[in-house]
């Protein structure tokens, strides 16, 4: 201990403290402050740049997600429209079909009715003609009967043959 105390040298202590404290103050002003500020600034800059990059990435992802969402929506809408169109088309065809059928049926019915009435009219006319014809025949027959028997028979046969041809 005595040896250690003996080693203490006031002059050296004085110079050391003077130079060292001076060095601290000088370096503080001219070196440490600018160095630490620069390092800090740089670190902040890097941090900010990284943050900005991260944000940009996020924005990109959001944008991409939005785009995809929009695309999906558009696709769904298109599908919906196509489906609706198909439905409308099918409905239209079905409608047209059913209308055509009813129309056709109606027309067939009308035709049938008119055929029936025509047939009835024809039948009536035929009946009339047959009656008048038979009357005429009967008249002529009676006339011929009255004149010639052979001729009457012939005539009847001829008339009948005519009637058949008719």
């Amino acid at each position, binding site marked *: 201990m005595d040896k250690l105390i003996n080693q203490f040298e006031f*002059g050296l202590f004085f*110079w050391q403290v003077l130079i060292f404290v001076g*060095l601290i103050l000088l370096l503080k002003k001219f070196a440490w402050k600018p160095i630490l500020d620069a390092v800090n600034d*740089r670190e902040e800059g890097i941090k900010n740049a990284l943050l900005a990059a991260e944000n940009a990435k996020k924005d990109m992802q959001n944008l991409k997600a939005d785009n995809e969402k929009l695309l999906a929506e558009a696709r769904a809408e298109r599908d919906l429209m196509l489906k609706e169109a198909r439905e409308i088309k099918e409905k239209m065809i079905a409608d047209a079909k059913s209308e055509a059928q009813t129309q056709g049926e109606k027309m067939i019915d009308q035709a049938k009715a008119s055929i029936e009435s025509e047939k009835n009219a024809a039948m009536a006319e035929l009946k009339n003609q047959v009656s008048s014809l038979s009357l005429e025949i009967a008249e002529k027959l009676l006339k011929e009967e009255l004149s010639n028997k052979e001729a009457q028979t012939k005539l009847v046969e001829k008339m009948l043959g005519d009637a058949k041809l008719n």
Partner: protein
Amino acid sequence: MVISKKPLQFILAMTMALMPIVNFANSTNDSTVVEAHAAPKTEEVAHEEGHGHAEPTDIKSQVKAFTKHHVLDSHDFTLYSDFKEGKHVGFPLPVILWDNGLHVFSSSKFHHGESVAESNGNYYVINHHDGKIYKTDEKGTIHEDEKTGHPSNARPIDFSITKSVLFILITAFLMFFIFVRLAKSYAKNGGIASGFGRIFEPLVVYIRDEIAIPNIGEKNYKKYMSYLLTIFFFILFLNIFGLTPLGVNVTGNLTITFSLAILTFLITNFTANKNYWGHIFWMPGVPKLMRIVLAPIELLGVIIKPFSLMIRLYANIFAGHIVLMSIIGLMFIFKSWIGSTLSFGLSFVLSILEILVAFLQAYIFTMLSALYFGSANEEHHHEEAHH
């Protein structure tokens, strides 16, 4: 080169086994040297009376003396000395003394401690044992204290620019140059360091992120950064300088470590908050009686902390220098190719270890200073956390 591990191990074992033989042969050799020098040594003793110190004669004591002188501060800068011819190559440094008036003269007046220097009617001499300047008379008489063996002569206050002061100045200028250039390079290069100083930037960032912020805390660390950075690089540079062949031992000097430790002590106690003093004088969370017992212990701790800082740095660097010098000295004592080669290898390995110690001690000093600053700035809520 190495064929396999075994032959190498074998060679090593053999050299170790042969060492005692060589060693033995050498030591007998040495003793003859001592005997041969015995006659001139008696003359030296007679010579000693006039000079106040003995020139070492045999190599062992020369090495011992050289090592002892190397770790001390000195008033001149000696690059190398030739003991046989008494020649010293180097340059003198200014001596500044305060002894009822200022005395300024060159240390060449002392002729490397061999003669008495005269300034304005006062006579001074450098004591060979501690390298300090003592006031003396015309003949250079030194009165030695019988108990301690220290000279009892009066001492002037010595403000000399010694070797240590010179190297403190060189280190200060070097640091200023390097770090101011580094600081300027940021502005020039768009926020990125350039040039030589940039190799220190990682260390600066390391001290901020690994020493200051974890120990002091994000809130308060900024006001201590200048001190921590300066002290780290100051100790590191001087430690590294100490390992160069220039042979300065600044951080292994008790005065230097004392002044560094006292600065840490002063900064700690002047920036301490209420909580810190509360912990010392009136420890919260313990019984009242214990608080009275704890106060002196805690107060002692305040002084012991910087004291340990001082001793740790001093002892590490001092011991490193002594060991390294001794092992280098062994080369000259052995004077055989095996012994000298081995001690060369050993000193090489130790030098590398000393580089590690240079960094480590600078780190530890800074780290512990930061720790003490942190404890002086501890916030109240910390205290509740551990009770």
